C-alpha cells in the first residue's frame, strides 16, 4: 500500500505509542487529516509541551512542571513519612486514595541485574541522601509485588535498616469489594499468609 510521505510518517509515529498496532495507527492518522486545523495544532502543542515543560522533581523524582514539585513544596504534608514507588503513575494512584499525607520518592524502575539495572541506575542514591534529614521517621516501600519489586524493596530496607528509620512494606492480598471465589490461588495464599488476629 502506498501512502504519501506526510501520512506515512504520521502512521509511523502513532505505531510508536503503546497499545497502537498498524491498523489503529492508520485509522488515527486518517482521523487527524479530517480534524480542524486548530485542534491539530493544539494537539501538537500539547505533545511538545508535555515533553518540554515537564521535568522530574529534583527531590522526589515525580513528574512536574515546577521544581520542586507541588507535593514536595506542600507545607501541610508530613515530612516524617516517605512512600517509595517505582513509577510516577504509582504516585497518582496513591494520591487518588487521599489518605496518605506524607512525601513520595519515585525510583523510575526496579533493580534487575538481568536488564543491567543496578541500584545506582534507579533513584536509590537520592533516596539515601534524603534520609540524612532527621525529620524522616518512616519509609513505606510500595514497589510492585513481583520478583524485581520485592528485591528492590528488600535492597532498600537493608541499606536503610542501620539508620534506625522504621521501614514498612505494603500488604499483599485480596482486593476490596471483590469475591473470594474469583481470587487466584497465589493471591489467596498470600492473603492467608498475611492474615491477622481480630
Amino acid at each position, binding site marked *: 500500500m502506498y501512502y504519501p510521505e506526510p501520512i506515512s510518517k504520521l502512521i509511523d509515529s502513532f505505531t510508536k505509542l503503546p497499545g497502537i498496532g498498524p491498523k489503529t495507527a492508520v485509522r488515527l492518522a486518517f482521523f487527524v487529516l479530517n480534524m480542524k486545523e486548530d485542534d491539530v495544532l493544539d494537539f501538537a502543542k500539547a505533545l511538545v509541551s508535555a515533553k518540554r515543560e515537564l521535568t522530574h522533581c529534583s527531590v522526589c523524582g515525580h513528574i512536574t512542571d515546577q521544581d520542586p514539585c507541588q507535593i514536595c513544596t506542600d507545607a501541610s504534608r508530613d515530612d516524617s513519612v516517605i512512600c517509595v514507588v517505582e513509577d510516577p503513575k504509582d504516585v497518582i494512584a496513591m494520591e487518588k486514595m487521599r489518605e496518605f499525607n506524607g512525601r513520595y520518592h519515585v525510583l523510575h524502575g526496579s533493580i534487575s541485574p*538481568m536488564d543491567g539495572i543496578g541500584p545506582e541506575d534507579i533513584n536509590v542514591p537520592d533516596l539515601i541522601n534524603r534520609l540524612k534529614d532527621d525529620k524522616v521517621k518512616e519509609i513505606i516501600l510500595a514497589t510492585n509485588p513481583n*520478583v524485581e519489586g*520485592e*528485591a528492590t524493596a*528488600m535492597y532498600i530496607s*537493608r541499606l536503610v535498616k542501620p539508620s534506625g528509620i522504621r521501614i514498612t512494606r505494603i500488604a499483599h492480598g485480596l482486593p476490596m469489594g471483590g469475591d473470594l471465589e474469583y481470587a487466584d490461588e497465589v493471591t489467596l495464599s498470600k492473603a492467608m499468609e498475611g492474615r491477622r488476629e481480630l
Partner: protein
Amino acid sequence: MHIKDLTLTNYRNYPSLAVEFDPKVNVIIGENAQGKTNLMEAIYVLAFTKSYRTTKDNELIAWDQTFAKVEGTLFKRNYHVPLEMQFQAKGKKAKLNHLEQKRLSDYIGALNVVMFAPEDLNLVKGSPQVRRRFIDMEIGQVKPVYIYHLGQYQKVLKQRNHLLKDLQRRKTTDTTMLSVLTDQLIEHATIILAKRFLFLDLLMNWARPIHEGITQHKEILSIAYDASIDIDNDADVDTIKQRYQAVFEQNQQKEIDRGSTLYGPHRDDLIFYVNDRNVQTFGSQGQQRTTALSLKLAEIELIKNEVGEYPVLLLDDVLSELDRYRQSHLLHTIKDKVQTFVTTTSVNDIEHETIRQARVFHVENGSIIKQEGDKS
C-alpha cells in the same frame, strides 16, 4: 473419569473424525505414520491444552488449513463435561462446558491424563532435567501454588545468575543485592524442596508395591532425592531454610568465582534404586523400562488420591515393548478402573484376552476404517 467421545477437525492428518470410546480399554491399530500417535496426542491436548511433542501449537493444524479443533465429552463424577480446544494461527481457545476459559490454568485439570510413551524411558535413562520436569509437572497438576513458586524461583535464579556474572567480571562489587537475591531464592527454594520431599514420599509409597507386583516380588524399588545441599529427605521447612542459608553463606565466593548459582532445586536429581542398585547406571534395559512404568502407574494412584477419580491412561507404543507377564500385569492392574488407550501396529503384540474385551479401532491415513469389539 473417562472420555466418552472425541471429534477432530483439521487436526494434523485428521480432516474430520468423530469417534466414541469404550469406558475401559481402547486399542488403536495401524501401520506406521497413519495417525495413531496423533490420536493420542489429541487426547493429551484436550487435557493439557498443548502437545508433548511440540511447543508450536501451529503444528497441530492440518496442512493448508487455518484452524484445528479438538472436542471431547468427558464423563466425570456422573456428569458429562464438554471440552473443546481450538487452535488458530493467532492463538488458542479453551472451552469448558462451552464456556471459554480466559486462563488456561482454569481449564487444565478438568481432564486428568497420564501418558506413557517410549520417550518416558528417559525418565530413568535421561538427564536430570527430565526427572525434574517429571516431578514438577506432577506436583503442579495437583498444587497450582507450586507452579507459582517454581516460576518465581526461575526468575530470581536468572537475576541472581546475572548478578553473579557481573560480580565475577567485576562490573559491580555490591554484595548487598546478592544477599537480597539469595534470600529471595531461598524463600522459594525451601517451599519447592519441601513440596518435592512430600511428593516423593507419596510417590514411593505407591510405586513400590506396584513395582513388586510387576516383577513378581523379585525387585524392590526405592527413590532417593539427590539434593544439591546435604539434607535429609524428611527435613522440615525450617531445617531446609537454615541449610540453604548456611550453604549460600559458606559458598558465596565460590559462586562469584564461577559466576553462577550452584545450589538449589534446579541442580537436584532423583535416583532410582532396584534392590539397592542404581537403575540408571547398573539397571538392564528391562529394569529401566519397568521402573518408568511403575512410576507412571504410581502417578495414576496419586492423581486418584488427590482428585478422587482415576485419570485416563495413554499407552503409546509401549505395550509391545513389555514381555507377556508385564503386559498382562499392567493390564490387570488398570482393568476396570482406568480408561486406557493403547496404540500398536499389530494385534499380535497384545494379549488375546485383553483384545477380546477392548474396543478396537483400525486407523489408516487419518481416518478410522474399521471398528470392532463390544459396542455396549
